[in-house]
Structures are given as structure tokens and as C-alpha cells.
């Protein structure tokens, strides 16, 4: 399954891109699988990922939450509003 992860702020700057496309194996990949795949696809995010969360379809998701084809996925890292 292919997933495109949206990147913002410092994470986008580190990756040099506003999004990263990764391929997930298995029948029911989870956000934990995505975290590992993203670390391989974008090594510049290595130190960011352990302290980041994913949003799936505009809601925070946990590591065990499944991903489905067509989900909107964003990496929520180092927010700094205000």
C-alpha cells in the first residue's frame, strides 16, 4: 500500500519536501509501520520521528491505528503555535 505523508514546518525543511511517499507491506499496516517506513524513506527525519505524531484524516492517530488506502496522513512534529 502506498501512503503519502504531508510534512510541515521544521520537518518539511529537514526533509526538503512537503510530502514523502512510502510503501507499506502487509495486509493491515499501522502507524507504527509507517513510522519505520518513513525513517527509511526520509533519514533526515530520524531524530524527529520518535517525538512526532501522525494525523490520519485530520485526527491524531496512535501507533496501533490501521491505515487504509486513500487516508490523508500528516506528520505532526514540533508544533509551535502562538
Amino acid at each position: 500500500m502506498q501512503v503519502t505523508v504531508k510534512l510541515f514546518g521544521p520537518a518539511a525543511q529537514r526533509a526538503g519536501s512537503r510530502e514523502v511517499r512510502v510503501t507499506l507491506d502487509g495486509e493491515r499496516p499501522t502507524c507504527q509501520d509507517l513510522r519505520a517506513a518513513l525513517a527509511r524513506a526520509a533519514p533526515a527525519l530520524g531524530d524527529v520521528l520518535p517525538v512526532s505524531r501522525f494525523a490520519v484524516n485530520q485526527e491524531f492517530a496512535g501507533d496501533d491505528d490501521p491505515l487504509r488506502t486513500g487516508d490523508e496522513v500528516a506528520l505532526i512534529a514540533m508544533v509551535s503555535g502562538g
Partner: protein
Amino acid sequence: MTQAANQLTPAPAPAPAPVIIDVVDGPLPGASALAPVENAGALVCFEGIVRPLEDGRRIAALDYEAYQPMAGAQLRRLAERVLHRHGLLAVRVEHSRGRVPAGACSFRLRIASRHRPEALRAAEEFIDTMKRDVPIWKTAVFAE
């Protein structure tokens, strides 16, 4: 009450929404007068201003980026949570996106409550949580 009396009684004005969220382009305009809130004894207003210096470097502006509509939804969820947890009367949140020059306002939180302590506690809780849970980012645009 008779039917005639019902017809003569003006309908009460609709109460203002207790939570209002605005994410707007560029710096926030000057604060407008908050609509009177019934039973309010305290109004706390916090404004976040773009600092002209960061780590000794002069800043021309901050570029704010918001992941919408999630950012607005998270702000609303947070505002409703502090509204109920602290028994507040009203919460209004304004946040910039896009470029905000140094010295301009990028964030405004206004809280109306019956008494001062709950408004101050709620303001602190709101801002701390926003900086952790709301998908908004800022990037410094340095002057030199």
C-alpha cells in the same frame, strides 16, 4: 399566558456562541470589543506578539503555517474543553497564518468568566496545550 401575550413578547436575542475560533491570514487586527457576556466578572485577554529578537538575531517576521482544517478543529476542541472544565462563560481564539511582521499580534485569546482565578488558570492551560497539540508551525524570517 394567553396567545395574544405570547405574540407581544419579543423573542430573546440569541446568546452569542460561547466559543469562537478564527484562523486568519496575516497579522491580527486590533481587538474588537467583546460582546457583553452575562454574569461576567473577569475578562482575560492574552496577545502573542512577534518578538523582534530571537537568540540575538533580528527577526523581520514569522511565517505561520496551519494544517487546516485540523488546526481550527483542535483549537475549537481545546477551547470547549477549558470552557467546561473551568466553568467559563466565553472563549474567543484568533490565530494568524501566513507572514506576521515583528511587533504585530499573531495570537489572541480572550476568556470571560464569573471570577478571575478560573480565567487565568484556563488561559495558561489553553496556551500550554495549544503549543503541544495544535498543528501550527512558525518559521523565523531573519532581517539580515
